């Protein structure tokens, strides 16, 4: 809900969560799938960098509504 309301104000927002199904149901538009509920931004910094880079990329990309991106492995 936070994502959608912030988007409603016109701010591109990327939501990193391990539950993208719920996020799309509620209506967030830019969603990156995080690895786990307990650590949406990964365990170590390398993993974290991958997730954050993906999220930033999504902020710079035009998307269709309710888009979910995975983080590529490696």
């Amino acid at each position, binding site marked *: 809900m*936070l994502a*959608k309301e912030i988007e409603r104000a016109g701010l*591109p927002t990327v939501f990193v*969560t391990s539950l993208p199904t719920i996020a799309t149901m509620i209506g967030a538009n830019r969603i990156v799938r995080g690895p786990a509920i307990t650590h949406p931004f990964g365990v170590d910094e390398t993993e974290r960098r991958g997730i954050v880079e993906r999220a930033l990329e999504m902020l710079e990309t035009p998307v269709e509504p309710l888009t979910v991106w995975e983080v590529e492995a490696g």
Partner: protein
Amino acid sequence: MRAVHYLNQFFAGLGGEEAAETPPTRLEGAVGPGRGLDGTLEGIEIVATLACGDDYFAEHEEEALGRLLELAGAERPGLVVAGPAFGSGRYGYACARFSRLVSERLGIPALAAMHGENPGVAVAEGKVPIVPTAVNVVGMRDALPRMAQLAAALASGRELGPPAEEGYLPRGFRRNRLAEQPGAERAIDLLLAKLDGDARSEVDGGFDRVPPPLPVPDLSRARLALVTEAGCVPQGNPDRLPAIRAQGWLRYSLAGERSLAAGRYESVHGGFDVTLANEDPNRLVPLDTVRALEEAGRVGRIHDVFYTTTGNGTPVAASTRFGSEIAAELREAGVEAVLLSGT
């Protein structure tokens, strides 16, 4: 039974936009769409039509309502019907306000009719049943019989059944009923229906859609804010963010912080195991990484505060409010992009 029908200036035949300032006016019997409605109402007669200009209502709401309530009461009706307003926002607003007040102040059963996304629906706050209609007057022939159906139900004095059965928009109430079949059987029936291509649900509800904002043209020149619903707070939770059912949100300064260090930040979210998060809070709010990217010039500037709340058992209305409050602050501060973490 006597009924009063509310229409705006246009449907009452008083004129178009040029008549939008018409003050509340009483017309004899059924007028315009009211005639079609009256024809299908059994045992109910529209004895008077109240018309008001959409702009007049919007600009003089108190006077308009006062006068309309007076006029309505004078007819001693057993029922009040407002609309159909279709997608017309001012008209739908007036229908919602008037029908609601007639019901609350005069104790007269009332209903309205309009498109499901008409702002009047939200304004009614579920206090009066609203028949959903098409978005414009093309839906008139379809709307009138359904309004008549709900009118008859209200006039009978019985308690209304659920929205799907009686033909009105969900109002957000839940009533307990004893079902004939146990839940397991009903669930299997729903599953079989779904496999057959018929997706039904016993629970109503849906969420509106917001179009995706345009992308940030160049993050290296943009201010990025961090927001989380993972309950990340300074160690010790000085402002007592709740673990569940948070009533609000908090903001904390990131000035001088290069990382959310263990022992200085923690998560108080009651909905997941926070052990990993407390070992390294950057796993919830990736400050270490975004700072490094800020230094490398990938991101222009990390916003100097981060926003936090606990997304655990938060009612939709509350989280909607949090989101719009936080959004207002972010916009005010010139933030151009947001990284939100949830669990």
